[in-house]
């Protein structure tokens, strides 16, 4: 790609343009784009499964797919969306791209490890595509034993192996982040001057490092049991299937925090920028990221309330689950307080961020319902749970991801996206999302179970509503793909700091040099400080308050 007319002369994009220079790159920015391509491809795969699921559920008999194919479809949707889209999404794309820029470093600590992580991800993706094409798995993304190890007639081992390999990619990235954040910060960039995006990724990396190995060993044991008839979870040998669930959820619950924490980091960057105020309670938001990471590890058995675990254990986990809501709530309160008396502008990233706050809050609150033992007896394995986690994963994480892509798009590509169209897309997504998933809360409350291809006819209206919403949601996803691609060629040239925002990444070119900075920056300002940075040109001629943000307007 040649240099952008009117933009910087030499950028990481124009540096070298052979295929080899991309496939063998050590530049974290290029690797971020490589990851972006991979996970977008998998998003389509998971999305296709979702489409078929919703189409099947339009009609109560569920004959479009039938029972067996439906099982394989929701399993594929779960596995692909969780491990091949959501978990890598923000960390490998925005995280990879921005962390060195935000801390003033030239690259991550281990660039070759970064590239290796992408290759390992793709290898795991190939294995996943194999099991999908070969006929899929019907165990659910949770691989519960003894069905998965003894009875399922599907490609369990291939699927487990795909996830196992994927885990290596995960923790390689996380290891890179941890060492980078500890050792490669620019002079003056102390821990408490770090952008909250970096804090969020640090906390996420801790979860990756401590949790991923456990799913690896769990799936390895399940695979060994299936292949060699060893007996870890097999009741015939005295093994306990619930042990599998303990080990599985020890990782998979913190995994959901892996999926949400980076998005929260994005929101913490967007809100101050478009409210023109320093973030309220920086220390608390940083601490709450670590808090979520830590407490997130001690709540896993709330997925197992109905399995036959001891009542005392269930009580303990229920209490701890209530506790984990506290740091999340701290963040929501602080974001809201940041908005108070701010100079707010409703640019696209801000629309996504505001949507995040609302939808994440709904998702989080419904999680508390599920944490109540008595309520969970009725709600477990119903659509209430499905709606709960989609509110957080889609209404939260994906909106954070899209908001981040829009916010940093000028930095990554040097172009501005078309603002008017982007706002329409954001609103479309919001409407489509709510129409898809809010009826599912009601369905679950009324008793419709999840993971069934058919349902009693009285649930049809709500299901049709949900499918209709899904079509609008799909449009909300397609529109950004179209206009963002368009903007790479035809968008307005962005300049270093179009919003403007206060982070270190905005002090360098858009797109940045391969080495990120012309010279190593020295940091002597506090984060999100809009008032004491005259060079950003934020203060109007007469007003003491910063003027609202502007992008392409």
């Amino acid at each position, binding site marked *: 790609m040649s240099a952008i007319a009117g933009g910087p002369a030499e950028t990481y994009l124009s540096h070298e343009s052979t295929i080899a220079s991309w496939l063998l790159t050590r530049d974290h920015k290029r690797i971020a784009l490589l990851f972006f391509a991979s996970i977008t491809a998998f998003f389509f795969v998971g999305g296709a499964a979702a489409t078929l699921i919703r189409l099947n559920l339009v009609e109560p008999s569920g004959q479009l797919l039938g029972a067996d194919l439906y099982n394989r479809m929701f399993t594929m949707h779960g596995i692909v969306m969780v491990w091949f889209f959501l978990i890598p999404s923000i960390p490998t794309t925005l995280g990879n791209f921005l962390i060195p820029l935000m801390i003033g470093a030239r690259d991550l600590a281990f660039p070759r490890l970064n590239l290796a992580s992408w290759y390992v991800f793709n290898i795991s993706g190939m294995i996943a595509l194999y099991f999908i094409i070969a006929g899929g798995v019907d165990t659910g993304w949770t691989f519960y034993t003894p069905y998965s190890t003894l009875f399922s007639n599907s490609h369990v081992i291939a699927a487990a192996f795909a996830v196992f390999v994927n885990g290596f990619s995960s923790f390689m990235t996380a290891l890179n982040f941890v060492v980078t954040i500890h050792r490669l910060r620019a002079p003056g960039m102390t821990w408490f001057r770090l952008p909250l995006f970096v804090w969020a990724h640090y906390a996420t990396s801790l979860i990756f490092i401590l949790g991923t190995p456990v799913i690896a*060993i769990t799936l390895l044991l399940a695979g060994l049991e299936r292949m060699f008839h060893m007996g870890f979870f097999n009741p015939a040998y005295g093994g306990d299937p619930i042990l599998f669930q303990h080990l599985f959820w020890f990782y998979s619950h913190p995994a959901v925090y892996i999926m949400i924490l980076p998005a929260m980091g994005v929101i913490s960057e967007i809100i101050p920028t478009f409210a023109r105020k320093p973030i309220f309670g920086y220390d608390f938001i940083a601490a709450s990221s670590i808090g979520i990471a830590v407490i997130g590890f001690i709540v896993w058995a709330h997925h197992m309330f109905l399995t036959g675990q001891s009542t005392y254990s269930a009580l303990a986990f229920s209490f701890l689950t209530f506790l984990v809501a506290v740091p999340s709530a701290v963040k929501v309160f602080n974001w809201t307080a940041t908005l108070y008396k701010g100079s707010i502008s409703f640019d696209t990233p801000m629309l996504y961020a505001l949507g995040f706050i609302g939808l994440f809050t709904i998702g989080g609150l419904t999680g508390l319902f599920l944490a109540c033992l008595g309520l969970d007896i009725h709600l477990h394995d119903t659509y209430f749970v499905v709606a709960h986690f989609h509110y957080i994963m889609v209404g939260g994480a994906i909106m954070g991801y899209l908001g981040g892509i829009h916010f940093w798009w000028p930095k990554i590509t040097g172009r501005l996206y078309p603002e008017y169209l982007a706002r329409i897309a954001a609103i479309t997504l919001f409407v489509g999302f709510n129409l898809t998933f809010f009826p599912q809360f009601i369905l679950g409350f009324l008793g419709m179970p999840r993971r069934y291809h058919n349902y009693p006819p009285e649930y049809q209206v709500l299901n049709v509503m949900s499918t209709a919403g899904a079509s609008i949601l799909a449009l909300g996803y397609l529109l950004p793909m179209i206009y963002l691609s368009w903007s790479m060629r035809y968008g307005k040239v962005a300049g270093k700091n179009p919003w403007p925002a206060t982070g270190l990444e905005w002090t360098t070119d858009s797109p940045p040099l391969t080495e990120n900075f012309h010279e190593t920056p020295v940091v002597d300002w506090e984060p999100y400080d809009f008032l004491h940075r005259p060079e950003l040109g934020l203060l109007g001629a007469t007003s003491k308050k910063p003027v609202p943000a502007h992008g392409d307007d």
Partner: protein
Amino acid sequence: MHRTGELYGQFQTLEQQKESATLGMWVFLITEILFFGGLFMAYTVNRHAFPTAFGVSGNMLDLNLGFFNTIVLIASSFTMAMSVWSAQTSRKKAVPAWLIATLILGSAFLGIKVVEYKQKFDHHLIPGYHFDITYCSNNPGACGLSGKELDDEKKEIKEGIEAEANEAKKRGAPNPEEVGLTALNAHAQLYFSLYFGMTGLHALHMIIGAGLLLWLIFEGLKGRFDANYNTPVENIGLYWHFVDIVWIFLFPLLYLINRHLA
């Protein structure tokens, strides 16, 4: 492969680069703690549930070989540490010498593991495959058992069957006397699944370690490592010590469960 002590672009100083590499290795080892940890979890839960079967099964392992292997591995950790010291003090010739010693000791460990695994196969102790905990006491010639050893094992199995029958009765099984042996065999297979899982995973890590050692020896023979540059020796050393630590726990947990019957 970069030249000795070359500074990479993303680092400001060689010291920062070295410290980052070591930090990275420690973070990786933490993932390994949790990786093996899952197996230790499975072991703990199942030993808590079936102490009798675990005791009987543990005694099927050859204590002498296990003890010898533990000594060998600890010694290899020493030789590994000595090779790091040699590099730090620029004793370039000693570095590969100590590494070769480490590799020899590690290979001895693996060789004995092969012997042990073959023994399990011969004694019908592979879970899910002709498993029979009474094979050796019924066919002492095939297992090389005789005299007091044979009597002890027969007694142990008999007591094991009784204990399992009692447990079955407590759980309300309709025919406890019949299920005693079946239950013992079933729970013993659980033990041996864990045995092969844990020692197998450990052996795999040792094989990888041996590969890394080979590379280090190759580089060390070229005189690559000295006081200015010894990061790979140190970091691979960390990995090797970790694998040793895992065995330090595997040995008592697998071999020494109920030896006081002997």
